[in-house]
Structures are given as structure tokens and as C-alpha cells.
């Protein structure tokens, strides 16, 4: 592999890493609270509010059903408003985040829903407020599931980020298409795919490890 190619790959990897890390962080920061609201405002839950629940649910569904490539183009005015430009890595982060937030929120919602209702009831019987139930029961108990959800979100973001080339976002996918496909350099395409495989593998493995470490439900009886 030529040194130029290596330099190209490194640059592209850096761009992908920035896009995935920033939009992943935003997905966590906004998606976790959104997931909490989706769960707790549902019927029979601690902050039941069906109007809020339905409106948020509809927004989440609408965002999730829009194909990413269309979403990216459709929100160009918003992107320009937020980052001042509609082209480049920073510009790609806006649609990536907007796609990842509802995705993460739904997964987080599922993890939170799996917390045994008996635990919520026990906390209520002790006089816990809704806020305390969220902070001390729902989130800590669902933490392994939330970590797994965020891992899936990151992996999906790596895939979505390949489309960022459409708005000049750069990144590995963009490199693969431009050099590998448009310039007939299959070895670049291959290198990109290999790097992506390693990247996804690394993210998934560390996510699994962290989730397992946080999960005290299967902790063995021998370990003190």
C-alpha cells in the first residue's frame, strides 16, 4: 500500500471517527432522556402523559422512517443555520445526530421498559419521587441495556457516515466510493472495508465488555 493511500485512509478514519463520536455523543445526551420520557409518560407509568407520549412517539417514528440520504438533504437549511455551512464534516454531523437520536431513544426505551415493574412499585412504596425513581431505579437497572443500545447506535452511525460523502463530509465510506468505485481502485475499496470491519468489531466488543461488567444480574455466586 502506498504511503499516500495510508495518509488518505488515516484522514478518512479521522473524519469518520469525529462524525461518529460527536453524533454518537449527541445521540446519548439527547436520546437517553428522550427514551426516559417515552417510557415514563406511557399509560400507567410514573409520569403518565399520553399527549406528550404520542407527539414524541410520532416525531421519533417520522424521523426514523425517513431514509437517511433524504433526511440529510432535506434538512440542509437547518444544518446551515446550526453550523453555518451545508458542506463538510461538521455539516454531516447535524443529519447524523438527527437520525441517531430517535434511533437511540427507541432502543433506550426498550431497555428501560424491561426494568421489572416490581422495582418501581417498591421504590414508590418507600416514598420515592418520579425523579428519584428515574435516577436511582430505572437508569441504574437498565444501564447494561442502555450501553448495548448505544453500541448498536454507534455501529449504525458508522454505516450512515458512509453516506456523508453526499454533503462533502468525507470519511471512510466517501473515500471508498471516490477512489475505489469512481477511480477504479478496488484495493482502496478493500482497504476501506477492512478498516470499517475492524472499527465495528472494536466498538461492538468494547460495548459488550462494558455492558457485561455493568450487569450484576448474572454475577457468579463464587465471586464476592
Amino acid at each position, binding site marked *: 500500500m502506498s504511503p499516500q493511500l495510508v495518509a488518505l485512509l488515516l484522514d478518512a478514519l479521522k473524519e469518520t471517527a469525529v462524525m461518529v463520536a460527536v453524533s454518537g455523543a449527541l445521540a446519548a445526551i439527547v436520546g437517553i432522556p428522550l427514551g426516559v420520557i417515552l417510557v415514563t409518560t406511557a399509560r400507567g407509568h410514573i409520569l403518565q402523559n399520553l399527549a406528550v407520549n404520542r407527539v414524541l412517539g410520532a416525531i421519533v417514528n417520522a424521523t426514523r422512517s425517513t431514509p437517511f440520504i433524504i433526511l440529510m438533504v432535506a434538512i440542509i437549511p437547518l444544518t446551515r443555520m446550526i453550523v453555518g455551512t451545508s458542506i463538510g464534516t461538521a455539516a454531516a454531523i447535524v443529519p447524523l445526530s438527527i437520525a441517531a437520536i430517535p434511533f437511540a431513544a427507541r432502543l433506550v426505551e426498550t431497555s428501560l421498559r424491561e426494568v*421489572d415493574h*416490581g*422495582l418501581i*412499585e*417498591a*421504590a*414508590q*412504596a*418507600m*416514598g*420515592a*419521587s418520579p425523579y*428519584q425513581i428515574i435516577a*436511582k*431505579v430505572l437508569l*441504574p*437497572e437498565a*444501564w447494561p441495556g442502555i450501553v448495548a443500545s448505544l453500541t448498536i447506535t454507534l455501529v449504525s452511525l458508522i454505516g450512515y457516515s458512509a453516506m456523508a460523502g453526499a454533503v462533502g463530509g468525507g470519511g471512510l465510506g466517501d473515500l471508498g466510493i471516490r477512489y475505489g468505485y469512481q477511480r477504479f481502485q478496488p484495493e482502496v475499496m478493500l482497504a476501506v472495508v477492512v478498516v470499517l470491519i475492524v472499527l465495528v468489531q472494536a466498538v461492538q466488543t468494547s460495548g459488550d465488555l462494558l455492558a457485561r461488567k*455493568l450487569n*450484576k*444480574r*448474572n*454475577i*457468579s*455466586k463464587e*465471586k*464476592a
Partner: protein
Amino acid sequence: MSHPSPQAGSQPVIRLTDIVKVFPSKAGPSTVLDGISLTVDRGEIFGIIGRSGAGKSTLVRCINMLERPTSGSVVVDGQEMTALSDAALRKARHRIGMVFQHFNLLSSRTVYDNVAFPLEIAGRSREDIRKAVEPLLDIVGLTDKRDRYPAQLSGGQKQRVGIARALAGDPSVLLCDEATSALDPETTQSILALLKDINRRLGLTIVLITHEMAVVKEIADTVVVLDAGRIVEQGPVFDVFTAPRSEVAQSFVGDLLNHDLPAPVAARLAAAPGADTNPLLRITFTGPAANTPVLGELIAGKGLQANILHGSIDYIQDKPHGVLTVEVLNAAETLAPALEYLSAHGLKGEIVGHVAATRRAAA
């Protein structure tokens, strides 16, 4: 009262008046609790027993407002619970401990942190929490397991954590919702012994709901029998146990005490008394009279010739309750004076049937 509890007989700690709970359902509203009124005295162990679907779980949840009654009044420790604001209700709940059938421990917290949980919620300092949790772990015998997670404990240990946690807020009442139903018989005994010990040592009022008469018999002072959302019987456990009036209570007692005739004796039952039958005399021993040597007196003093067919003795609230069934071989001469003697000593003697005689009385 049948049993001397530490502070029994003083003011009621819980008073429920005309509790009605109606749940909406697809088939129309269903009334789960239909006008329940009861009072629980301070320091007593109060059992609520019923078959599944009788409404007992809903009833106990009405005490701490996990279920809000459709109508009626719930007074705990002098506070009308139905009238409290959300914030005041949370505060009141700090003083009502609850133990659950499935323990409901936080899997992400250690034993120590689970017991500390209600204190954290109440906003107590770390030092306060330590001072409260350590003695509680000692009471339930889990000091050496304080850093374990619930997944590393047995069912009985988990329920001990549940009990310690329920005691952490220094409650005036402990509500137990089928606290032993998920445990094996041996563990059930140890948990019941723990609850009894806590009741005696701390003078803590305990309300426990169960579908097992054995649990009520083991530790309760007073029992309420619930059926289809109504109270069908209530009173001191010993009374309900030895003389159940309602059909439901009788079936609960029957589950536990098998005072029916054993099959081989039942097979010998005659349709009607006749020349070649002997009467079956059933003597029921209850309370202090159970300790008098009645049978000896009947045989030696009254000349009764008896063939013992079946007998059993149970201890309820540490008081003996026994039943003895004998075939009287020389009924003609001795039965009437024997029955007279029994009633004079406050014991119940009744003729429950006649069996074909296998032997006549010795001359």
C-alpha cells in the same frame, strides 16, 4: 385478645373504613374490594388471608396508597392517607415498610446499598445511613454478605435483605405482601421466625397477607378472612382457627388440620346406629383444658372402654389444640356420664358417627 403482644390493645395504628375499590375492565367495572373496614392495633401481627383473587393484595396496597381506593378512608398513624398531597404521601410512605413476594431488590446494588436505598430516598446523610444499615444487617443476619449482589443470594437471603430494607426507615407499620410465598417451607419458617422476632423486639406492627393458613397460624395474633372483596370472618387467630364459622375459613383450616376420619375408619362407618355398632366419640381439646388428663380420668374414673382411632394436636399461638377420636366400646353404660364430664371441664365431646363393632366391651 388471645395473645399478649408488647403493646397490644393500645390505639389502632391502621384504621380502614368502608374501603371500596373498583377496577375498570373490558367486561365493565369489577369491584375488587367491597366495603372493607378493619383496625390494626399497635404491636400486633395482623394476618389477612384469602384465596387468589379475593382482593387481599389490593387491600394491602390501599394501606400505602399504591392503590388508591375508589372510596373509603385509610388512616395510618393518625394520618388520613387518601387526603395527602403527593409530597406528603411520599413522606408518610417513609414510615410504612413493605416486603414483597418477589423481593424487588435492585440488581445493580449490593446488599448494603439495597438496605440503604430508602434512606437515600429520604435524603439522609451517608453517616446516618451507615449507622442505620449496619445494625439492620445484623438483625437479619447478613453482615457477612453486605457487599454481595442480589444475584449471589438465595431466596431466603434476598427476603432478609427485603425485610432489612423495609425496616430501614424506622417504620411504624410493616406490610408483607405474600412475603413467604416464593420460598420453600424451611426458608418460610426462618423468615416467619425473623418477622416474629422483629415484632417482639421492636414492637413493630406487621400486616401480612397470605394464602397459606400455616403462615397465619405460625405468627399472627389477629386474622381477617377475605373472600370476593369482603371480610367473611375476623378475630383472634386461635378463635378463628379452632372454631371457624365461615365456609372459607373452614376450608383454610381444613387445609391445615386434618381432623377428618382416616379412610380405614371412615370405611367402617355404619349408616345408622344399631345393636352391633359402637359410637365414635370426638373430643376436642382447646386452650388450657387441653392440658388436663381427660382420657385417663374417663377411663379410670368413669369406666370408659375406648379404642383410640385417630388423634392430632396442633399448637396455635403456642396454645395446644387437639382432636381425639375414639370408638366407645361400652357406650350404653358410660357414654352419658363421659359427655357430662367433658362439658363440665369445658371440653367439646360429640358423637360423630357409628362404626360396625369389631369387639364388644370386655365384661
